[in-house]
């Protein structure tokens, strides 16, 4: 990690580098069977950022014109610190990539900063009443507002206690997440179980959705379970019962031109 110390790196690169702090250091070193080239994706990101920062320092740019410290568009620094630490516990790194290597924080950031975060497909007219069993989500908050509100409450509470979520040990983090999941914690008006449900649901989405959405980097989620992605045909395989399908998965971003491999089933309009 060059000559720069971990502490200096964190201070310089802020959010992007902090992810490194929440990954157990052993995850990269003790994992010879990792299915991605480096287990510690965020360290790579940090190195790249540091490198570019060094170049910037050499340049004659006026003060204040440095590139952004991170590629987050939605989360502020403290929110990103919480998110990176939390998703690393929800889908931890072991011999397989976890949420951090999959880029789940980036997925969450882009989803919450976009149409979904702004309430796409959500009926948002009042009046609002607390939900009842079977009636689903009833808060007036859109997903972006929900995350901002809840994370701020979490960070404020934990700062008062002297230890931020991302400074806790993994066991303490798990304990805290279990408390949120169990419910009953008031996060600035957001029931913690409502926030946790969306956090967990979107974390799993970011781990398993197509990489074009910014998570599931290098299809690590799909490789872990053997989901092949966007292949378009199993016509010759479906009745070969029990075969092990071992082809590399395919993302939407890769599969142009592959979509109709069987020339006997042309992708053309029958009406043309």
């Amino acid at each position, binding site marked *: 990690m060059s000559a720069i110390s971990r502490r200096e790196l964190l201070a310089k690169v802020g959010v992007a580098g902090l992810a490194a702090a929440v990954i157990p250091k052993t995850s990269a070193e003790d994992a010879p069977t990792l299915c991605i080239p480096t287990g510690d994706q965020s360290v790579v990101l940090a190195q790249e950022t540091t490198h570019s920062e060094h170049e910037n320092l050499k340049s004659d740019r006026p003060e204040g014109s440095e590139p952004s410290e991170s590629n987050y568009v939605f989360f502020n620094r403290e929110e990103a610190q919480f998110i990176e630490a939390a998703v690393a516990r929800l889908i931890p790194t072991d011999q397989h990539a976890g949420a951090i290597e999959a880029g789940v924080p980036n997925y969450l950031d882009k989803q919450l900063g976009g149409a979904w975060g702004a309430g796409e497909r959500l009926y948002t007219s009042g009046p609002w009443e607390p939900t009842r069993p079977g009636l689903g989500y009833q808060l007036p908050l859109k997903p972006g507002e929900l995350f901002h509100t809840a994370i701020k409450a979490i960070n404020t509470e934990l700062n008062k206690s002297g230890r931020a979520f991302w400074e806790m040990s993994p066991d303490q983090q798990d304990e805290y997440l279990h408390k949120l999941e169990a419910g009953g914690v008031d996060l600035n008006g957001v029931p913690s179980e409502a926030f946790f449900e969306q956090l967990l649901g979107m974390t799993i989405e970011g781990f398993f959705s197509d990489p074009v959405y910014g998570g599931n980097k290098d299809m690590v989620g799909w490789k*872990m379970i053997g989901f092949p992605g966007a292949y378009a045909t199993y016509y010759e395989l479906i009745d070969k019962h029990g075969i092990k399908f071992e082809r590399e998965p395919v993302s939407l971003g890769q599969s142009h031109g592959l979509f*109709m491999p069987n020339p006997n089933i042309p992708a053309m309009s029958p009406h043309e």
Partner: protein
Amino acid sequence: MPTVLKEVDVVFVGFGWGSSILAKELVNTSLKMVGLERGFPRFTSPDFQSPNIHDELRFAVRKAMMQDNVREAITLRHSMSETALPVRRWGAFLPGTNLGGSGVHWNGQHFRFQEKDFVLKTATEERYGHKFLDALGLTVQDWGVTYQELEPYYDKFEYLCGTSGKAGNIKGQIQPGGNPFEAPRSREYPTPPLKEQYNGALFRKAAIELGYHPYPQPSSNLSVAYTNPDGLKLKPCVYCGFCERFACPHYAKASPQTVTLPIVLRSPNFELRTQCQVVQVNRDSTGKKATGVTYYDAAGREVFQPASIVVLSMFPFNNVRMLLLSKIGKPYDPQTGTGVVGRNYSYQTTSNVWSFFDEDVNLNPFMGSGAVGTMIDDFSGDNFDHGPYGFIGGAYILAAWTGGRPVEQNPLPPGTPSWGKGWKDAVRKHYGHVGQILCHGTSMSTRENYLDLDPTYRDAWGLPLLRMTFDFPENDVRMIRFCTDRALEIGKAMPGSREVSSKIYGQRPFDVAIYQSTHNAGGAIMGTDPNTSAVNKYQQSWDVPNLFVLGASSFPQNGTYNYTNTLMALNLHTADAIRNRYLKNPGPLV
């Protein structure tokens, strides 16, 4: 003041399966027809093509093809004493939108109802006396149309779609390999069954061992290339595993885009207008004649389209809501049991069973199709004696993987942690090694389950949302428990099964956030008596004879099976009556 357009002969509200098949049947008349669709136009090419269509997040998780509930939602309460709250996100059911409607994202599960379904009240009383219906508070009714009357239309729709399957009963002769419980059909399916999944093959072995009668699920995702009677060509399904909630890129799924629209849109007598939000059916001063419909176009301009015949053919909720907004038909009052619009809302009662296998048993769920199941009808409808049990109705039990989408089609054994290392280990261990069984059952109507307009919540046009008052009747809760137990027995008997689990959706309180079925039915039901039905057997309004209300809103209660084939048979039956009788002599057909 609205822009008033030139009168047409027929205006269709909503342009999915129902409208497009009726328009297709009328295309050789001289009628001038206009189809109004609230959503966008879309076609197999280029809109449904790979790779983009193979996107679980966009289409399955985010539900890109469904009614935009930012603009139009419904509200739900579980009983009349509660305040309804909006269904702010779709979950339990997924009403489609855009050209082709729910007929684009359906799974192609192509069943007929059984003979007794159409005469449920009479048949139940004949076999069991009055004890069931009265004791269980059921308000089931006969449909006013019989299976025998609909059989030619079932047959016609199956041959338009090219449905793949194996007949079990041709003119009363039981056929080996088919479903021995099915109602007699006049001929074999147009195309042979799909290939069988490994999951289905294991289920078949277990079902035979237990003495049941497995057969291949009838599918309108086709097994072979097919040219239908209109000369339209469909292609074989390639089992891509993106069928339900998706559109077919391969021309392999029968849909409006492959079966009806190519003919309708070619007609010089037909005009399609998309992004048109109809808000009212207008009537003349007598109230007994529809004069046309009022809608807002894409730019928000108010337009009045005069028409001689108005056809409502939206998702059942929206048919009922349009009648209520237009004040057509007496609204149902659950206190007195009188009135017709909103009466007898029913649903589908379902559960899942999962059978967990060792890691070396590769079930490859991603090699799937929307209707690729292997199934039994031994516990469907009235196929077994309900005398010893405290309920009527039943469920089919089906083994299928429509796909292996990792976000949502990823069941884990009971007791698995919901996150963390335990979750991750379980996902890695079990994905691809789980058998899936579905119980898909009847839904009986009751006096308390109904639809009306919500007093509080409104849509983007300022109009009241539809309010659903619904919870699972005790009859249906008992039914699905019984059938789920049978499915668990089969799941355990699947060779190699290590463990089984189940999830019953048909239990109180009805959970609108968990997907169950998009077979919402009733609310503008058909029948023989204007006091207990909104439309006659030709889906013609009793109150306004030049208004036809097509679709599953006509069902007095819901049968065991996925309902598209049945509502399309009703629509073809209606089309014949309009073409052969109504046009010659407009007025009540009954």
